[in-house]
Structure formats: structure tokens, C-alpha cells
């Protein structure tokens, strides 16, 4: 269920008219009618009207508590239930969680079909021959095999009706060869996956100490899919970046404030090759107690010094806007400590910044906001109360928010903050004094990867406000579908003629280890797409900062911000714009494609914005666009909406047909997470909604590296090996039954005692497979990370392609032939013991079964790469258990144990031939795989073989020399390819050691 799981505080309050009904007594007299919309799934809108005292009051989401809300800062409320059960918004939002199955499982289904066809075929062949044999029992009116009494027979063996007998035999055959279809495989796989998930959950290297959060596999059935990821689609905010906003810079009245450099700036500077000289001031200010969300260093403003700045009144207004224009709620923790609960971390950063500068917001109620601020004239801190009249809320469409307040001087003020583009077009003529320079600064900020916001205000005329308010209230109370539109229009009316104050810059910090992780993933051959709502510039800069875009990579930018399109947009003919845009995108894609084909040696990064994307997703264009995107190492989609994210994910999935992984942390990523083959949620600050919709939850982006390269690789390997082996062992077993049946004139007689057969999949072969599925690892975790290319085994599906599967099946068939024919020829016929006894049905059954158990378990020992005492215990234990079983079962009275009675103790064990046959058969049956493996490791080694060989190789001088030479050359190569990333890391290390000192 898609809960709006964001755990941040949401401001809800009653209507003013009903707010005084605060006791059960007073509610007795309360009579009102609510008219509202039909149940729907929009969480953030509600249209309704309360009829009370012959008056209409509009109801908004502000008055609505969603199902599952928790009260905070208040003990209790009185309320009216509007919708219940499935009518609630939350339940209306519930979409069925997508059922995800892995590619391996889907292929496994197809293998089962193949096996099922084999089963039917084998049964049919058996029936055919059985029919012929049965028919021959009656030749020329005489019964041939008189010892079967064909004259007094049942329908199953009736030579007079061989067709019926053959048909019924077919059913017997289906039962008998049912072992070809490993039903226990599903159970074993489930067990393995659950245990694998436990390993993922318990992995210390994926445990985040700060947050006290381990990785969490929320579903256990996608483990092996982690090893096959072809494309990663990542959200930016909160995923690549921390989503802990820090107020770092601002531009007030055209003056830049705030020193210090952001990580992005450092990276950019490296890119340009500039030497950094400003390291010292940051370190100096580091000594001061750091405040979360605030990283602003400027002695001109801090500690009340802004008063002496030339434009101090603008500075005052600027911070007043930051301190009042928000929806945050203060929480007084102590005498000097105030925490803020805000809907977005940006907002919290603003309020904190205002507090640090000296405009402390400390109390809020429904109608007022209280600030404690410095009076520039007297120099003392005074409390000022701003009467809050209206809040025009932020929405992604409006891209701005504003409040209308009345200050203690009885001035009516409209305070606004919002995206620069929106604010700039609403400035009055006289308010544009700092426009040019602020624009410049905003450009600079966004280049540095900062999130910018313009701040403006307006003094309102009393009359104008009065008339506006009336209309606004009317719109607010209206119950109609276009109420929102109406209110937006009215908000537009008042939000004009603004006076620009300046702009803020908030840093969205990169998460720890992101560049290194992305670099590793890229080297593992995984394509990475970043889908973000940010501006192009910000996105590109973040791309550089986290080494998504690297030095020497060519950028391809597809955009609609071209002069000719912009010109057409001004004309306003929508159809013409659409057509022109489509053509333009088409041209750009084709051009880029030819460029990519020409310069095939260079890496490309594709950057496309959301608007262009809508055209690129056009039916005719989508294929060539995806083709282009697939050839680029990195794709960045900026300005994309949540829905676009999901659509892109679906497209990538369907066009490439490969495994996609989506990673994100916010509610806007839910669609993407559900759409992708694997959704990885980051349990960060943006609430738990993404985690709820995800398949795996990790605390930090950098854990993705280990999740994919180590756990994914292992799980993929384990499960695919396990399935192949399972088919192998069941085919080996099933076909020995078939060969034997062929020698019983296809009468359906099994080669083994019933209990041997029932125990095959349960006791003698199951545990080693499960051990393989849980513990096997081709190379250690350290080497997995060291050789990211190993991951390509999973992406290319080398371990589970059809040749390999069929190879294992063929191996099973071969084993069964070797086992059956070697056993029967060695042991039956002449005496098999010194005392002249001959091997009968029960002895042959035991010998064959012994050979099967040995062969199958030794094959396992040959195929696994990782021997611990558990593997030894399970493999040799299973074989030993077979003998124990025989002894125990054989000592039960013969009416129960039938053919197994004392068969090992009395008949087989004293026979040397029995043991020799076992040895010979096992060696002969292992020979094909052994020689194939030897050949393959020696001449066609796979990645893991190479790494294993390399690791096992003993030290030698010659080897050392080559190794050194190689490592030198590879180092040289790496440093030329990834200079910025490596150097940043080195510098970071240096810096941190300096700090420690």
C-alpha cells in the first residue's frame, strides 16, 4: 500500500469558527453540514464546505487528517469522520504492489516446460514400447510370456487391448519420471533466498552507524536479480545528495555574502585545474560549533554586524522574509535552543539561517508569528509579532510561496520566495534594482551546484488587500473542481509588483562515498541514469561532482531552450510549438547519434531535460532516442517529473529488455521504484515512503556498490548454479529410472525401493545444494569489489544462458547413462561375491542408487568454489547418511523394508565388487565434467576463474615483475582517466588528517 509515509510534521488546524469547540460538552450543541467531493486518491487536495450557522466555510487539506496520521504537539482533537475504509484517500491510493519476478525465475519456468515436455516424451516412448511388448504377449492365439498369466490379467497389462494398456502406462510413466521435474527446487530456492536475505541484512559493511540502519532486503525473491543489473536509474536529491540542506551563501541587494566552497565548487575547480588557496578559512571556522543546516561564514553579517553594512535595511528585510515566509513550526527545546520542524529541509535551512543572523523565529500560532530580532537603532533584541493573514502555499506548479502579514507597524506586507524565473517575472519596475546582479549571482550559484531561491516582498495597499481578500475567501469556500485554479489565479493577482531583495543558495551535500561508488559501478559496466527535477546546470554539476560525467567525456545536450523554439513560444501557437519542438528534438537526436557512431572511442554523457523528454518519448522517436541513450555511458534527465521518471524506467526496461534498478528516497520516486525490476529505497530523511515501495532498503547510496557487486554477484551465481545443478541431479536420477524401465519391457517397474526414491530429494541431495545456494562464493568480497568487471558475468547472464543450462542437462543424461550401463554390466550376470551369490533386483537398485548419490554429490564438490566445514559436512554427510539410512532401513522387519532388508549389511557391503563398481562409476561419471572444466579454466577462463588463478598463484620474482609493470601501467591509465576523482579523494584524506591534528 502506498502510504504517504513521510514522517515530517504537517500543519493542520481547525477552521476558526469551530476552533473553540474544545470540550465534549460544547460539541453537544454543534450542528453543521459538510458537503465535499467524492472519494478520490489525491492526497494533497480536498474540496469541501462546512455549512454552519447559515454560513459557508471552505475546507482545505489543512483541515483534513489523513488516515493513519499521528497527532503531535497536541493531546487530542475533536473531528468528524468524512470517509472510512476504502473511501479514504490513503486506501484510494493503494495500487496493487507490482509482482516482481526475476529473470532467472522466468527462465526457470521455461526450463520446467522443457522438462515437462521431456517427461511426456519419455513417458510416451515408454508407453509405445510397452504397448508393443504387451501386444506380443499374445501371438497367434498363444500366450508367450506365460509366467505373467496374460490369460487372467487386468486392464493394465491386457494383451488383447494393448492400446488401453499403453495409455494407462503413460500415466504410470508420468508418475515414475516425475523426478525429472524438481518440485523441491522451488522449496530449496525459497530457503536459500531467505538465508541470502539474512546475509544482506546482517552485512556489517552495509550498516550505517550514524542512522543505526542496516541494509534491509524487504523481499527475498529478487536477490539474484541484483547480480544482473544493466542500468541504474537514480534519483538525485536524497540519493546522490544527502538532502540535508545547508545555507551557504546569499546575495542581498546585489552583494555576495558567504565564503567557503562547496564540494561541487571544489570539484569544478579541480576540473579547471585551479589551485585551491581558500582551504584555510574553512578549517579555521570549523573550530566553531557547527550547526546543522547552516554553513554560512561571513564576518560582515554574522554576530549582528549586518547593521553596519551599507544596505542594512535590505538585509533586515531579506532575513525577515526568511524568518516569516514559511510553514515551519518551532519547538523550544531549552532556553537557547529552538528546533524547527519544516515540511522541506530547504525551509528549515532558511529559518535556521535567519536565527543565526539574528532573526529568531520562536513561536507560531494560527494567526501570528513571533520573532525575536535585533533592533538596529537601539541594539537590543526585541520581540516582534507579525499578524499572519494568509499563507499562499508552495506547490510545484507555482514554484513559489508567499505570506501576507501585518507587521507591528500595521503595515501590510506580502513576503515571497520562490524559483528565480517565477519571481523575476513578477517584479515591479522599481523592484528591479538588483535584478541584473542577482541573476548573475544565481547563475553562479547554480553552477556551483547550489539550490537557489529568489526573495522578494511587496507592501500592500489596504484597500487593494481588502477587495482581494473578499474574492479570495469566496474562492476558498467554493465547492467546485476549478477551485484550485481560481485560487491560483487570485494568488497571482496579489503576487505581483514585487521588490527583489536577493537570493539564497543552499547546498545539497553529496552523500558520503558517492563518486567512488558511481565510478565502481560504471567500471562494472552498469549504465547509470540520473533522473532529477533540478535545473540543467545543477544536474550537470552534480554529475561532475559524483564522477558521473568525467573528464574527457563528451556531453550531448538535448534541449528545447533554443532561440527558434523560444521565439515560437512567444507567439503562443501551441500546435506549431509542438511540431517545431518535435522536429528540433528529432534533429538533435539524429545529429547526436551520428556523432556517437563516428567517435566510438570516446565516452558520451547525454543530458536531456524533461520537456524535451516528452517529445523524445514520442512513438516515432523513442527507439532512436533509446538507442542513443544506450550508447552513452551516462544519461542525465533534468527537470523531470515523478511520472516521467516512472515512464522512463518502463521504457528502459522494455527497450533494453535487461534488468533495471531504480534507486530513490522520496515519495516522488515511488513510481520509478515500482516500475523498475528492482527498487532500492534509501531510508534517508525524506520519509519512509520510498522504502515502503522498495525491494531493498539501504541507508546510503554507497552501499549500492556492495549490494550489487558483492551480494548481487554472489546471489546470481548461487541461484543460477543451484538451479542448473538441481536439474542435473534430477535428470541423472530420473533417467536411470528410464534406462532400467527399458530393461523391464517398459512395464513401469522402478529401479529402486520406494523409500529410496522418496528420500532422494529430501535427505541425500538437498543439503549440499542449499549450502551451495547460501554459502558459495567464487571470489571473496574484497576481490569482487576490486574487479568490478566480474559483475558482467551477471549482466551478460553467462552462468544461466541456454547453452549452459542444456550443457548441465546433457551432463545429467550422460551421468545417468554411465551410471546405469556401468553398474548393470559390472554387477549383474555372474556372481558378485566370493560365495557365488548373484546380484538380484534389490542389489542392483542399491548399487545404482549408491552410484547416483556419490556421483551427484561429487559433482557438487567439483562445481562449488568455496569449501567450508559446512560444505564438507553436507556433501560427505549426505553420502554417509545414505549408508546409515540403508543400515537402519534394512534392519526393519522385511514385511516393511521389503527389498531393502539387510541388503547392505548382508549382501553389498561384503562384496568387493560393489565398492569397486561404485569407485569406477563415480570416476567415469565425473570425467566429462572434470575434463570440460579443466579445458574451460585453462583455455576459455571466465572472469572468476581468472581472478581465482591470479589469487592462488604463488609469489615468484618473474610474476612480481610483470605484476609491478602491469600495475604501473594500469595506474598510469587510471590516473589519466580519472584525475579529478582520485585527486579529490587524496585531498580529502589530507584534509581530514589535518583536521585531526
Amino acid at each position: 500500500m502506498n502510504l504517504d509515509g513521510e514522517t515530517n510534521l504537517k500543519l493542520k488546524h481547525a477552521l476558526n469558527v469551530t476552533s473553540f469547540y474544545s470540550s465534549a460538552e460544547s460539541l453537544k450543541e454543534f450542528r453543521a453540514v459538510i458537503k465535499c467531493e467524492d472519494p478520490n486518491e489525491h492526497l494533497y487536495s480536498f474540496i469541501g464546505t462546512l455549512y454552519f450557522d447559515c454560513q459557508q466555510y471552505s475546507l482545505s487539506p489543512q483541515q483534513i487528517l489523513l488516515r493513519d496520521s499521528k497527532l503531535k504537539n497536541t493531546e487530542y482533537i475533536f473531528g468528524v469522520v468524512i470517509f472510512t475504509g476504502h473511501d479514504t484517500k490513503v486506501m484510494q491510493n493503494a495500487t496493487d504492489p507490482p509482482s516482481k519476478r526475476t529473470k532467472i525465475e522466468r527462465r526457470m519456468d521455461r526450463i520446467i516446460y522443457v522438462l515437462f515436455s521431456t517427461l511426456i516424451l519419455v513417458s510416451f516412448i515408454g508407453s509405445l514400447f510397452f504397448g508393443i511388448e504387451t501386444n506380443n504377449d499374445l501371438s497367434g492365439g498363444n500366450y508367450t510370456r506365460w509366467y505373467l498369466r496374460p490369460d487372467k490379467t487386468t486392464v493394465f497389462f491386457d494383451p488383447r487391448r494393448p492400446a488401453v494398456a499403453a495409455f494407462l502406462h503413460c500415466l504410470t510413466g508420468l508418475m515414475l519420471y516425475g523426478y525429472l521435474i524438481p518440485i523441491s527446487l522451488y522449496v530449496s530456492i525459497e530457503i536459500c533466498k531467505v538465508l541470502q536475505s539474512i546475509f544482506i541484512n546482517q552485512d556489517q559493511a552495509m550498516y550505517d552507524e550514524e542512522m543505526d540502519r542496516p541494509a534491509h532486503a524487504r523481499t527475498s525473491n529478487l536477490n539474484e536479480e541484483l547480480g544482473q543489473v544493466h542500468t541504474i536509474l537514480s534519483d538525485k536529491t536524497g540519493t546522490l545528495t544527502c538532502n540535508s540542506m545547508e545555507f551557504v551563501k546569499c546575495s542581498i541587494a546585489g552583494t555576495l555574502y558567504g565564503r567557503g566552497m562547496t564540494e561541487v565548487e571544489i570539484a569544478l575547480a579541480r576540473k579547471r585545474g585551479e589551485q585551491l588557496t581558500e582551504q584555510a578559512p574553512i578549517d579555521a571556522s570549523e573550530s566553531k560549533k557547527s550547526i546543522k543546516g547552516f554553513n554560512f561564514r561571513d564576518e560582515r553579517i554574522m554576530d549582528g554586524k549586518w547593521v553596519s553594512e551599507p544596505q542594512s535595511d535590505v538585509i533586515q528585510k531579506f532575513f525577515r522574509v526568511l524568518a516569516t515566509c514559511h510553514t515551519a513550526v518551532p519547538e523550544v527545546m531549552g532556553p537557547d535552543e529552538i528546533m524547527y520542524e519544516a515540511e522541506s529541509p530547504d525551509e528549515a535551512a532558511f529559518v535556521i539561517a535567519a536565527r543565526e543572523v539574528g532573526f529568531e523565529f520562536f513561536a507560531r500560532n494560527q494567526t501570528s508569528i513571533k520573532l525575536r530580532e535585533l533592533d538596529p537603532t537601539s541594539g537590543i533584541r526585541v520581540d516582534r509579532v507579525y499578524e499572519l493573514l494568509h499563507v499562499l502555499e508552495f506547490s510545484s506548479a507555482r514554484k513559489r510561496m508567499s505570506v501576507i502579514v501585518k507587521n507591528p507597524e500595521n503595515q501590510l506586507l506580502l513576503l515571497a520566495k520562490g524559483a528565480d524565473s517565477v519571481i523575476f517575472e513578477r517584479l515591479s519596475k522599481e523592484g528591479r534594482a538588483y535584478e541584473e546582479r542577482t541573476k548573475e549571482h544565481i547563475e553562479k550559484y547554480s553552477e556551483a551546484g547550489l539550490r537557489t531561491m529568489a526573495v522578494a516582498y511587496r507592501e500592500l495597499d489596504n484597500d487593494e488587500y481588502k477587495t482581494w481578500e473578499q474574492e479570495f475567501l469566496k474562492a476558498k469556500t467554493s465547492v467546485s473542481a476549478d477551485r484550485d485554479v481560481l485560487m491560483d489565479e487570485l494568488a497571482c493577482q496579489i503576487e505581483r509588483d514585487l521588490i527583489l531583495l536577493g537570493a539564497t543558495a543552499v547546498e545539497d551535500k553529496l552523500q558520503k562515498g558517492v563518486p567512488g561508488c558511481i565510478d565502481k559501478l560504471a567500471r562494472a559496466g552498469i549504465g547509470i541514469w540520473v533522473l532529477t527535477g533540478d535545473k540543467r546546470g545543477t544536474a550537470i554539476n552534480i554529475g561532475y561532482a559524483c564522477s558521473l560525467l568525467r573528464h574527457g567525456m563528451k556531453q550531448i545536450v538535448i534541449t528545447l531552450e533554443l532561440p527558434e523554439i523560444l521565439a515560437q513560444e512567444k507567439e503562443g501557437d501551441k500546435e506549431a510549438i509542438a511540431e517545431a519542438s518535435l522536429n528540433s528534438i528529432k534533429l538533435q537526436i539524429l545529429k547526436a547519434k551520428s556523432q556517437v557512431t563516428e567517435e566510438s572511442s570516446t565516452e558520451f554523457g547525454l543530458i536531456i531535460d524533461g520537456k524535451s523528454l516528452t517529445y523524445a518519448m514520442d512513438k516515432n522517436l523513442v527507439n532512436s532516442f533509446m538507442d542513443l541513450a544506450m550508447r552513452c555511458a551516462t544519461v542525465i534527465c533534468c527537470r523531470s517529473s515523478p511520472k516521467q521518471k516512472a515512464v522512463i524506467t518502463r521504457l528502459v526496461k522494455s527497450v533494453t529488455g535487461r534488468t533495471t534498478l531504480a534507486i530513490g528516497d522520496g515519495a516522488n520516486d515511488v513510481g520509478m521504484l515500482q516500475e523498475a525490476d528492482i527498487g532500492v529505497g534509501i531510508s534517508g530523511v525524506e520519509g519512509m515512503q520510498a522504502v515502503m515501495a522498495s525491494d531493498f532498503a539501504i541507508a546510503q547510496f554507497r552501499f549500492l556498490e556492495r549490494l550489487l557487486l558483492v551480494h548481487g554477484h554472489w546471489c546470481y551465481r548461487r541461484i543460477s548454479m543451484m538451479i542448473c545443478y538441481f536439474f542435473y541431479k534430477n535428470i541423472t536420477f530420473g533417467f536411470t529410472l528410464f534406462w532400467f524401465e527399458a530393461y523391464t519391457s517398459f512395464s513401469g517397474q522402478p529401479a529402486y525401493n520406494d523409500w529410496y526414491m522418496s528420500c532422494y530429494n529430501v535427505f541425500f541431495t538437498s543439503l549440499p545444494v542449499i549450502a551451495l545456494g547460501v554459502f558459495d562464493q567464487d571470489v571473496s568480497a574484497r576481490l569482487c569489489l576490486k574487479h568490478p568487471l566480474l559483475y558482467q558475468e551477471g549482466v551478460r547472464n553467462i552462468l544461466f544462458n541456454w547453452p549452459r543450462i542444456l550443457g548441465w542437462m546433457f551432463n545429467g543424461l550422460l551421468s545417468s547413462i554411465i551410471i546405469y550401463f556401468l553398474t548393470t554390466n559390472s554387477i549383474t550376470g555372474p556372481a558378485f561375491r566370493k560365495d557365488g551369490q548373484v546380484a538380484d533386483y534389490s542389489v542392483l537398485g542399491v548399487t545404482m542408487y549408491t552410484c547416483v548419490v556419490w556421483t551427484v554429490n561429487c559433482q557438487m564438490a567439483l562445481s562449488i568454489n568455496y569449501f567450508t566445514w559446512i560444505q564438507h559436512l553436507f556433501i560427505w554427510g549426505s553420502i554417509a547418511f545414505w549408508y546409515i539410512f540403508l543400515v537402519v532401513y534394512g534392519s526393519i522387519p522385511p514385511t516393511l523394508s521389503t527389498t531393502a532388508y539387510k541388503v547392505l549389511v548382508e549382501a553389498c557391503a561384503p562384496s568387493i565388487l560393489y565398492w569397486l563398481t561404485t569407485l569406477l562409476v563415480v570416476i567415469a561419471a565425473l570425467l566429462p565434467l572434470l575434463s570440460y572444466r579443466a579445458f574451460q579454466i585453462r583455455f576459455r577462463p571466465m572472469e572468476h576463474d581468472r581472478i581465482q588463478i591470479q589469487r592462488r598463484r604463488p609469489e615468484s620474482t618473474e610474476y612480481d615483475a610483470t605484476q609491478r609493470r602491469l600495475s604501473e601501467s594500469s595506474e598510469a591509465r587510471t590516473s589519466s582517466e580519472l584525475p579529478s576523482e582520485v585527486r579529490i579523494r587524496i585531498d580529502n584524506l589530507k584534509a581530514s588528517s589535518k583536521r585531526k591534528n
Partner: protein
Amino acid sequence: MSLCPHMQQRLFSHQCVQACQSLPACKPVLTPGWVVEIVDRYDIDCVPESSRMDKVSYIRDDSIPKNCSRFMKVHKYMKAPIYIYYQLDNYYQNHRRYVKSRSDKQLLDGQKYHDTSSCQPVESNNNRPIVPCGLIAWSLFNDTFEFIREGAELKVNRKNIAWKSDRGHKFGKNVYPFNFQNGTLIGGGKLNPEIPLSDQEDLIVWMRTSALPSFRKLYGRIEEDLDVDDVVVVNLTNNYNTYSFGGKKKLVLSTSSWLGGKNDFLGHACVFVGCSSLTLAIIFMLLHVKYRRPYGDTSYLPWNRKSFSG
């Protein structure tokens, strides 16, 4: 292990030449090749020429005596015990209908156990369960063999030819085949109703169903050595019908070694597996020499190859 008398003689003759090498020695002979086996197929030859056209009616005609004499020449010295087997070919003792048609409980408890439904279609006669019931018992092999060497009868030990566990725990000591083969259609051999089942070793051997359609079953043991060029006359009664389904009947005399009877297959298989391993080893060696590559050379790793990209 066996020390062949032939070898002893040779050693003896060399004694005077190399005294030091003639010390008492025991040469272990690890091959089952020393097992001597005589196989004689008699199912066609024991039918008179006149009846060869219709062997089935010959074998079914109870009025004709079925005696027959065979001559077996011993080519190699055979040391006692010499095992006597009868071998049947193309006889499906492992047919599902046949295998199932028995009652282990009845074999152990006799008439006390009434439910003989598993013995279909030979379960009862005159509303009384047949003891022992079932197709297997009903089709009991009933050819008999007598061995004469140089006019004197060779003693055949027919005790202890069945598994001890079968005698002790599967076939009852107080179960007597009082109404066996009394029905309208008589299949194979009859049993002496005076002897309990646990002592009817022919039946016990027969009831251990064979694994494959071609099988041998132990008939008895000759506990005297047979010398080279001895001629053994076998007086047999050819009662059992294998003609209707084209099965063969053979009489086998065989000694045994530590590996059991004469079976060349295991040896051949060992040689074959060994040879193929050797061949593979040589092929690998040649390939290794031809495509020499230092073990663990990292330059072959794909990420160290120049052509690698992405």
C-alpha cells in the same frame, strides 16, 4: 589371491639356476581371469529332433519324459567349490506385474495371513489362499540337474544357496506349501508340502527376483575339484517352458574369486576409463604446449586489454 599350481611347478624348475630367487614366495594374482566358467546352452538341444518344429507343445506334453544328457569338458582346472547356476535369457522377472505378485506377509506367517490380494492373479484356489501365492512362486523353475564324472555321481550341495536373511526372516519356519500348484493351470515346479518354506531354498532363490531379463540363479555347489580334461555328464530334466517366449536356458559351472564370478566388463571398463583419462591428459598437455600462457598472467585479464572500453 591364489597361488596357481602351474606357477609352483615353474618356480621349482628354476630352483637350481637361481637359488636365491626360489625362496618360498606368494604371488598375489589380482585378476578375476583365473575364474573358470563353463556355459552350456541346452534349451534347443534337449528337445528331440522330431519336436523341434513345435517346441511349445513338446514342453507342455506331460506324457513325454524330458530327460536329457549333456557332456561338459573341463578345459581348466576348477577348484572347489564349483557353483552351479542356471541362466535364463529374455525372461522378465523384473516385470512390474510379476514383481508385485507376491505376499511377504504370507510367506512369513502362512495361512494366518489371509489378505493375498497382492498376489493377483494367483491368489487362491477353492476359496483358500494358495501358499505361497503369487506369480513368482507359481512360475518356479523346475529343471533338475545331476552330475556324473567318470561314472561316479558328483555330490551337489544344495543347502545354503539362498541368503541367510531370507531363510531366517522372510520365509516362515511353520509355513507349509500344502496347496501349492493344485490349480487348473500349473505354472512351474512343485514343492514338497512336508518341508517348511524356510527350507525350500530353490523357492527362496527363485523369489529373489532378478534385476535384468537375463539372469543366473544359484542351483547348488559341487564340492570336489574338477581337473583338466575331465568330462562331466549332466543328466537333466528339461521341464521349464521358455520356448513360448523364445527364452534361452543355460547351465553354468563356475568357480569364483574375491571379485565373484567371471566378469571381464569391470576390467575393460577400468582400462577404458584409464585410457580416456590418459588421452585427455595428453591432449591437454599438447594444447598447453601449443598455446603456452604463463599461469596467472594478468595481461590476459580483459580490463588490462587495450581494446577494452566501457
